[in-house]
């Protein structure tokens, strides 16, 4: 039961592949000849040069342009029927200019010479208008120029897999769940292909293409007499992978197990609240890492740029290199090069190369570094961005977003059973559930999918109504056990929100099962309602 499907993914030092420009032509030659692919590298260069020339002519000190095409496919099934099959394409460009220290950005879904010129001029108009409320000038660090072409390595392009095959899998998932006791099962697959041309006045011309895949399901068990119901969601994480990820993952087997577990949850014991030791599986811990380490160490929010919406951070710059964020066991890295990572890419949306920019966020418990986009490094005495800019679409301004942020495995081979063996009164938690954290990232509360009682070193019965609540720094300092790399699992979020207008970003978080001492556990049952 404890060792249900666990994917062991070694942390690749780098998967970034640079290819010669001619490979771009090869990569796109077989693709449909839509507007994006009709543009091609030379036309793109001409359009980019027009934007950059126009911006410079109007006095911009910096400019960049992104021409992007995003393809999405979403299929969903409910019990024995297909609910929907959707395919979408979004194509357009965004131009960003810096004029006398003020940013201006404009975008359009029309991409031609006239539109590039008009959009660039409008971006300048916005920058000029903002001079009236520009009390701090934006300054950018110098960045190397790149001419790079990168295509994410994958075995099977999900957009080339037949719809019939995908539907068969979805229906098999639902059938397996219903056969094993689920009253309902809804399953879906989402795929995104992101293609991007980028050019900047620093001299970069970059083309990148990547794909992400997300299979998921929810099995539901109901009890008509009591009116109770319970869900168990799939444990498959979204990945920066091709369709081979879905082929390798036993979604049908997980659905059958999920159905049994949802039914067991109906009769599970309601938890006794109080301080308990927790063993948290990476299918749950990835989200805790995301919320308690990922967001607080974003430099833009630590400096106050996100104060109005996402919030600020308890990790203020004076804590850099000093804060004891976690116990000595805790090392958490940021990278955009990990295989299968949702944030993995060769260049960020400021044109910063990601290979070689990997960094420790927390090293042996100490806070070491922030995530940065362009223009932020100087505020903390660093020279340049570490490649963490991303815009979720051609019509959004690139802002600082998370790289893949992952808890490093323990040095020794330690099993989940060994972590549990040293616990008198605790809970083993799997799968992500409800999540919430304050705007400075101190106080959090997380639920989960499955909870098992731990008594005197042994795993016991299933529990329900569990949430764990705590303070970020106390929590990570309470970590006193980690499994080894054999238990490593890469979780992640398909749609992490930040910014105004809000942008979503895909990001992965790897982890191993970890033990935390004396964490506050709540009982979430409300018997008065």
């Amino acid at each position, binding site marked *: 039961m404890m060792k249900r499907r666990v994917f062991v993914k070694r942390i690749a030092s780098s998967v970034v592949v640079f290819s010669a420009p001619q490979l771009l032509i090869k990569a796109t030659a077989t693709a449909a000849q*839509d*507007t994006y692919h009709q543009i091609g590298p030379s036309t793109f260069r001409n359009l980019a040069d027009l934007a950059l020339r126009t911006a410079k002519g109007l006095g911009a000190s910096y400019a960049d342009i992104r021409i992007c095409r995003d393809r999405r496919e979403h299929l969903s099934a409910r019990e024995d029927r*297909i609910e*929907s*099959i*959707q*395919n*979408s*394409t*979004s194509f357009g460009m965004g131009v960003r200019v810096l004029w006398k220290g*003020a*940013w*201006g*950005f*404009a*975008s359009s*879904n029309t991409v031609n010479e006239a539109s590039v010129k008009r959009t660039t001029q409008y*971006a300048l*108009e*916005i920058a000029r*208008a*903002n001079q*009236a*409320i*520009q*009390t*701090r000038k*934006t300054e950018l660090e110098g960045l190397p120029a790149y001419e790079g072409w990168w295509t994410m390595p994958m075995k099977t392009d999900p957009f080339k897999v037949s*719809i*019939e095959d995908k*539907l068969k899998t979805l*229906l098999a998932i639902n059938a397996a769940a219903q056969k094993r006791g689920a009253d309902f099962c809804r399953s879906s697959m989402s795929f995104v292909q992101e293609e991007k041309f980028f050019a900047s006045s620093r001299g970069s011309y970059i083309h990148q293409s990547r794909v992400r895949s997300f299979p998921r399901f929810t099995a*539901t068990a109901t*009890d*008509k007499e009591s*009116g109770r*119901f319970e869900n168990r969601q799939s444990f498959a994480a979204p990945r920066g992978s091709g369709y081979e990820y879905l082929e390798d993952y036993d979604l049908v087997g997980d659905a059958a197990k999920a159905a049994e577990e949802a039914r067991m949850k109906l009769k599970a014991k309601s938890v006794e609240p109080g301080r308990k030791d927790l063993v948290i599986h990476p299918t749950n811990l990835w989200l805790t890492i995301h919320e308690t380490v990922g967001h607080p160490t974003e430099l833009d929010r630590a400096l*106050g*740029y996100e*104060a*109005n919406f996402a919030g*600020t951070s*308890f990790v203020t710059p004076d804590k850099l290199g000093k804060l004891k964020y976690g116990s000595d066991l805790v090392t958490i890295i940021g990278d955009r090069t990990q295989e299968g990572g949702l944030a993995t890419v060769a260049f960020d949306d400021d044109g910063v190369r990601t290979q070689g920019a990997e960094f420790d966020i927390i090293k042996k418990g100490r806070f070491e570094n922030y995530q940065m986009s362009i223009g932020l490094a100087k505020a903390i005495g660093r020279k340049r961005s570490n490649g963490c800019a991303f815009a979720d679409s051609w019509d959004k*301004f690139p802002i600082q977003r998370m790289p893949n942020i992952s808890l490093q495995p323990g040095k020794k081979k330690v099993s989940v059973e060994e972590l549990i063996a040293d616990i008198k009164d605790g809970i083993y938690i799997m799968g992500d559930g*409800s*999540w*919430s954290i*304050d*705007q*400075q990232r101190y*106080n959090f*509360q997380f*639920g989960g999918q499955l909870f098992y009682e731990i008594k005197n070193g042994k795993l016991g019965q299933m529990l329900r109504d569990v949430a764990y*609540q705590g*303070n970020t720094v106390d929590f990570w300092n309470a970590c006193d056990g980690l499994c080894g790399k054999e238990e490593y699992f890469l979780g992640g979020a398909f749609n992490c929100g930040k910014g*105004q*207008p809000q942008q979503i970003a895909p990001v992965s978080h790897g982890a191993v099962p970890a033990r935390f001492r004396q964490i506050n556990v*709540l009982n979430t*049952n*409300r018997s008065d309602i």
Partner: protein
Amino acid sequence: MILSRSEAKQITDKALSLSKADSCSVSLGGHERGHVRFALNSATTSGFQDDLTLSVTSNFGKRSGLASINELDDDSITAAVRKSEEIARLARENPEFMPPLGPQEYLESRTYYESTAKARPDKLAVLCDPVLKEAMDKKVTAAGFLDVGAGCAGMATSNGLFAFEESTGAVFTVSARTSDGTGSGWAGRNYHDMARLDTKHLGQVAVKKTLESQKPIAVPPGKYTVILEASAVCDLLGLMIGNFDARPADEGRSFLTKKGGGNKLGEKLFGDKVNLYSDPQHDVAPGTIYSTDGLPATKRTWIGDGVVEELIYSRYWAQKTGHEPVPYPTNLIMAGGSTSLEEMVRNTKKGILVTRFWYIRMVDPRTLLYTGLTRDGTFLIENGKVTKPIKNFRFNESPIAMLNNIEAMAPSERAAGSEVEDWSVSVPSLLVRDFTFSSLSDAV
């Protein structure tokens, strides 16, 4: 891009004329939006967005496929129609398929204001200027977001339906913080008409809250009488209405599921004073005139005097259960009372004033238990007066309990929440007893 009614009709007619499917529906959505963003008392990442999307759903018998594009030349439209047909042919028969609707009658739209649609970047910067001046005068640090724009939406089917609507929107939210990081305040509103948006006043409110919330003291968590300002109420009710779907209730997986089977339509689940409705032609918070599948949005009472009077019924579930189809609401109104916020404070012996909530997530769908935190101005009320700023709390509470524990209501007002920010909502501030705070947060 914003299309006129005739331009939209031309495109939907074109797409429908290309269709070789048994039936087809087409929807269009466009926008032109400009925004100004500021932080640290200075402009940051301002911009302009312009897009137009066409979605085509083709049906062969009960098999359906959908394709969306944002390039609207003839070749692209043809390609989208063909793609949707290709998908539909590969799809399975859906026993719950409902044919596209025929012509419908819609109310007159009240969501478009020409002056808002025409706002330029310089106008937006001017609106932010007094807010930044107020912040700098009072030596606090402001961050905010002003988003103004227009949108168009159209829908047509091969059965003769055509719907079209233009709308505008202006959203302004502003936060401020003291230099020592111990005080934080917020104010925000959204309107369809930018002229109603008083950014200067909102800036003053946020700055005042910031200064008043400095150096908060810790009050132990527990059950408290609370005054929830409209933003906090907006969030909890906006989240609740998303769970008013009849189907999950009938299927045994909703807070509206009845023990032994069926749903709680007609049952009194909330306090006597609770009246919750939607009305597309509401003066303060109008909604769009059409909703799911092109069904007309009309005035509907969801909760009347505490009784569940209406649930959302998809066309399929309505047909199966013998109910009228009820689409998702396009706005939400809670009828208010006549007690001012000041009176509520005067009538409270011990309580907590909450400016707004943050990061609200469902904990238990069976009881509609949510968790989240207070943010940007939380104050202690003692003997009829706001006496001290206090540290923020995490709450674990259900809107069901909240709507059963109302002591007084302010007049209903347009509100923007943190989770429900740009929907059209009008709700009152509420005085509520026994609201559950489960822990303290150090966040400011």
